[in-house]
């Protein structure tokens, strides 16, 4: 198989599996997850970073070769997201920002409108912006114009492990948008990860499924292999499903005779 590099936020990456850190039982797992699952991108919520802490400090567990995307979770509008992004980017020394403006705690749904505003501002300032959205092609188009590096539609509500229940809304985004599409939230098992890849998503972001697995390292390996398998199949071209039975042995000899 050819080396499958893909470009995102001016970086060339090999791994299409991004991992979130928020729900992990211990940050000590991070280096092993990165190593064993070949992860190259981690997300860290600015609200969970305390550079002065004497307790387990996430910053001490992030391997040097990894790209950190800081997220603005906890922000309720563009103004707050921008401020949090700037603080986070300074502490972690990264220009990768995931805009996450949650305005609904029950469903953890982002505010697409405010997300566009924050994306526009931060992109202009030179940040690499990755907006997290409720899947909506119209918003995705606005985000392209706003200078986003990728769009991150949710597959299902965060933390539900329900898979890509918003599939029919994500598909048009993948088809019509020329920047990478990262499916975020809802991916609970390897088959969901493979499905995302088969759909043509450029990458996925997973947190809950890894964090609450019996063995988070093993789960991240499983997801990583599913991502590779799904991507390989997508690149090859996946056969369409049919409504009727189709014999595996060709009938062409018979057809030639008649």
């Amino acid at each position, binding site marked *: 198989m050819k080396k499958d590099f893909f470009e995102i936020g001016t970086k060339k990456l090999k791994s299409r599996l991004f991992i979130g850190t*928020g*729900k*992990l*039982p*211990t*940050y000590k797992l991070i280096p092993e997850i990165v190593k064993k699952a070949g992860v190259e991108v981690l997300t860290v919520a*600015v*609200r*969970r*970073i*305390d550079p002065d*802490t*004497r*307790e*387990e400090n996430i910053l001490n567990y992030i391997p040097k070769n990894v790209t950190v995307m800081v997220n603005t979770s*906890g922000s*309720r509008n563009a103004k707050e997201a921008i*401020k*949090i992004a700037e*603080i986070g980017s300074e502490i972690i020394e990264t220009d990768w920002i995931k805009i996450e403006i*949650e*305005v*609904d*705690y*029950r469903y*953890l749904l982002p505010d697409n409108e405010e997300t566009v505003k924050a994306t526009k501002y931060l992109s202009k300032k030179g940040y690499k912006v990755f907006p997290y959205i409720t899947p909506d092609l119209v918003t995705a188009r606005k985000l392209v114009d706003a200078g986003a590096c990728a769009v991150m539609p949710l597959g299902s509500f*965060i*933390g*539900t*492990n329900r898979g890509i229940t918003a599939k029919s809304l994500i598909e048009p985004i993948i088809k019509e948008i020329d920047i990478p599409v990262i499916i975020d939230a809802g991916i609970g098992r390897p088959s969901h990860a493979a499905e995302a890849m088969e759909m043509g998503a450029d990458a996925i972001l997973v*947190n*809950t499924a890894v*964090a*609450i697995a019996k063995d988070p390292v093993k789960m991240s390996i499983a997801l990583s292999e599913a991502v590779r398998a799904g991507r390989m199949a997508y690149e090859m071209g996946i056969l369409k499903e049919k409504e009727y039975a189709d014999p595996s042995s060709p009938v062409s000899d018979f057809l030639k005779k008649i």
Partner: protein
Amino acid sequence: MFFNELKKLEKNFIRIKKELKESRYITENSETDVLKFLLIDISSQALEKLSLKARRITDYFFGRTILLYTPLYISDYCRNGCLYCGFSALNKIKRKKLSYREIEKEMSEIRNKGFNTILILTGEDRYHSSFEYILNTIKIARKYFSEILIEVYPLNEDEYRKLVENGLTGVTLYQETYDKNLYKKVHLFGPKKDFRWRLDAIERALKSKVKEINIGPLLGLNKNWQFDVYMTLMHARYIEKNYPDVEISISYPRIQRSFSKTKVYPVSDKDFVKTIIITRIFLPRVQINISTREPPYIRDNLIGFGVTKMSAESKTVVGGHYITSNKEKQFEINDNRTLEEIMSVIRTKNYRPEFNNWIKV
């Protein structure tokens, strides 16, 4: 306002009870069906089944983390005649209020221990604990903590707004009981007597854009404790619907006999645990907070069953972290373990002690 919902909800509670009388079989047809478990005595096996569901929901939505915080009492002056509280104006105790210098010392000590969330408490006394006193305390807290919560008397909207502008993240305010008659009986005098002013305070705070609120009943005050739990859950659901961008926490403090001058109706450990489990199932995204009022064996065993927030190294005297001369307590602490010990228990259960919930700006 939630106050306007009370009558309808009281009727609904009666309807649920009636439905249970007609059939003890609990389905999951409607969102509120799970609340029926509050009203019946269930077997340990049935509770186990519910607890597994609660555990799954908690893990999915909050991950393997427990948020840790500590309270700081800055003053115990109080004008309220509440029959259940150690700081009640009915009690002739030596009162104390921290100076700003003392507050700074206390906060610095708390921060040094590792906490990044502080809950600031006062009694209700606008003379000794004026609004300015609270405001200035928050200004000091801002230097040390990323999450600043208050549990003080109800304020007006402008006051809440001013505190938010100066760094306040959240408001904790317990209604104690949602039964208006009982409320009148246990609050003999003082500004707290005004049931509605207190109930509406949550919404005044929400309108002033606090990021989080914490509500709860005082279990043991009401013989019909299920009513207060039901109303608390409905209160939270109301906030979720009307103020969806706010983080909600619920606590279920259990009253302590030794501090109460009114009859106590103890809520058993089993009912207490059931309440937490049902809260988690009914409100998957709400934080559930458990204080050091509860003993270690309850606190430790509830990790993963719904609880997401715990206090540690709490003192219920004024100060207590740096200044240790005050003896008058609001209530007795039943978990006196050090932060280190509590963190170690959390880790043993394969959870991560989390200290950071907001961003210090």
